[in-house]
């Protein structure tokens, strides 16, 4: 085959040849066999009325995704109900279909603190295990920097927290309603419908496709609202082109407001769905969006919240809880500047991996 032997052809024919050969080469990739089968299965699932789009547009999607599902599914949901961007909608449907089969997940997590916050960024991992016969198990292990390591989780018995010094607190709850708190930072993670509904209504969606590696990124930008919401201002979701699974999530918060303003805003009643914790005991949450109690004679709302309801761990119970309570009594903490989730292959978790005394599963 020599270059000189090629006869001159029309531009359209040449372009078509080039495109078609490119398509054939794409189809010759090793992963294409699996992708081709998945394509047919997805199509037939649609034919059999198990259309991922239709399923996903049902707000009870999380039942399909296996209860708590995954962080990925949670964050997808945050942007799912935007129908103005057909492309994004379809990508999300594909991702949801892919993620719905996943029962064990691990993400490496990096929390970058708010501007002006002393201390290093926190790094660790989150493990999730959906179970058919019980609540989902979860473990958030902060392991860097080493001198601030601590962990939160939910095992078969319920919720737990473990301080840096190794003191374990037990809570009766089995689900984290809106977030897990780590070292004064919030980690948005949970899947309660109220959060999803509220966040879903507040984002504009666009998509980007990297022409080199074909990675699709969904970009959700929070609409300008005056609802006092502390949900992320921007969410980036990178979708693996081969598996349709989320491979990276980045949540970003603007940092323009000051702590004094934040404390003031925390005392204002807020509209919209409440994001309060579900029943049961547990560590108090930051950024509770329930209308605060009426101002009391002394101390204001923060003072009222300092006294835990019956059964809830109170100040003095142990240093970990004390720290939590102090933080809340001072008003909502700053949102982090950024949280990055990098997906890593999940091990075959067992229930024992989610005990507070276990080390993070490798």
């Amino acid at each position, binding site marked *: 085959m020599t270059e000189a032997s090629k006869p001159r052809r029309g531009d359209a024919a040449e372009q078509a*040849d080039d495109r078609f050969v490119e*398509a054939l080469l794409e189809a010759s990739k090793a992963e294409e066999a699996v992708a081709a089968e998945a394509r047919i299965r997805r199509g037939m699932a649609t*034919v059999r009325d198990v259309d991922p789009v239709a399923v996903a547009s049902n707000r009870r999607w999380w039942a399909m995704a296996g209860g708590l599902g995954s962080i990925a599914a949670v964050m997808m949901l945050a942007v799912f109900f935007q129908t103005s961007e057909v492309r994004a909608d379809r990508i999300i449907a594909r991702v949801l279909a892919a993620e719905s089969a996943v029962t064990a997940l691990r993400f490496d997590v990096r929390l970058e603190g708010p501007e002006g916050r002393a201390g290093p960024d926190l790094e660790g991992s989150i493990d999730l295990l959906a179970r058919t016969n019980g609540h989902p198990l979860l473990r958030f292990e902060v392991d860097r920097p080493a001198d601030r390591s601590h962990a939160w989780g939910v095992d078969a018995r319920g919720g737990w927290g473990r301080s840096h010094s190794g003191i374990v607190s037990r809570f009766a709850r089995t689900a984290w309603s809106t977030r897990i708190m780590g070292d004064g930072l919030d980690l948005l993670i949970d899947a309660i419908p109220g959060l999803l509904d509220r966040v879903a209504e507040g984002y504009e969606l666009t998509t980007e496709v990297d022409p*080199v590696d074909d990675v699709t990124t969904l970009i959700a930008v929070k609409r300008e609202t005056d609802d006092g919401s502390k949900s992320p201002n921007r969410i980036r979701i990178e979708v693996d082109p081969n598996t349709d699974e989320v491979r990276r999530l980045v949540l970003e918060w603007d940092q323009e407001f000051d702590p004094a303003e934040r404390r003031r805003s925390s005392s204002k009643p807020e509209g919209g769905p409440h994001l309060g914790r579900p029943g049961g005991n547990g560590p108090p949450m930051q950024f509770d969006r329930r209308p605060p109690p009426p101002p009391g004679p002394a101390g204001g709302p923060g003072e009222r919240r300092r006294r835990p309801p019956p059964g809830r761990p109170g100040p003095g119970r142990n240093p970990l809880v004390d720290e939590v309570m102090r933080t809340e009594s001072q008003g909502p903490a700053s949102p982090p500047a950024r949280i990055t989730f990098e997906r890593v292959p999940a091990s075959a978790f067992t229930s024992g991996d989610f005990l507070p005394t276990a080390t993070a599963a490798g």
Partner: protein
Amino acid sequence: MSDLEFESNQSDPRDPPSAEEVFEVLMRQNAGHLMAFTRAMVRNNALAEDVFQETFMVAWRRFEDFDRDRPFGPWLRGIAHRTALGLMRKTRKEFAVDTAIVDVLESHAARYERISMSEESGVVEMLNDCVSRLPDRYREVIEVLYRGKRSISQVAEATDSGPEAVKKRLQRARGMIADCLRTKGLLA
């Protein structure tokens, strides 16, 4: 013999396949050329997947209307073409494929369809043979990019050349592959 007759001959006449079963077999038979046609039209894998799935749904909804005396492949590709145009309009993205190119792609896909119907691995073998005949410097870039899961920027870095140079070499390699496939009857 139409595609449907071809399939129904494989089944036990006492237990005729359901429309759903027939449809699945037809889609499996035609998925290769449909995806090649779609990818070549939109030149974006993620979008091609969307078009494929939408085509799948539309084809099923209209399956009762399909003229069973006609071949399934061209009907499917017609749906894919209209679906791609529709999706582009909805997402307000530019669809830079003119009719002349689509006509040639249709011709290529029809040949792909004929070859794959008679020999399932025929197209793959033709492509592999053509790649193996490329001069080394062209074959290497094809192998690394499409078989080695590397990106253009990674190939550029590894070969100590710029991304644009790699893209040009790729385009030239694809041109040579096209010439080779033409001699084998896959391209018109």
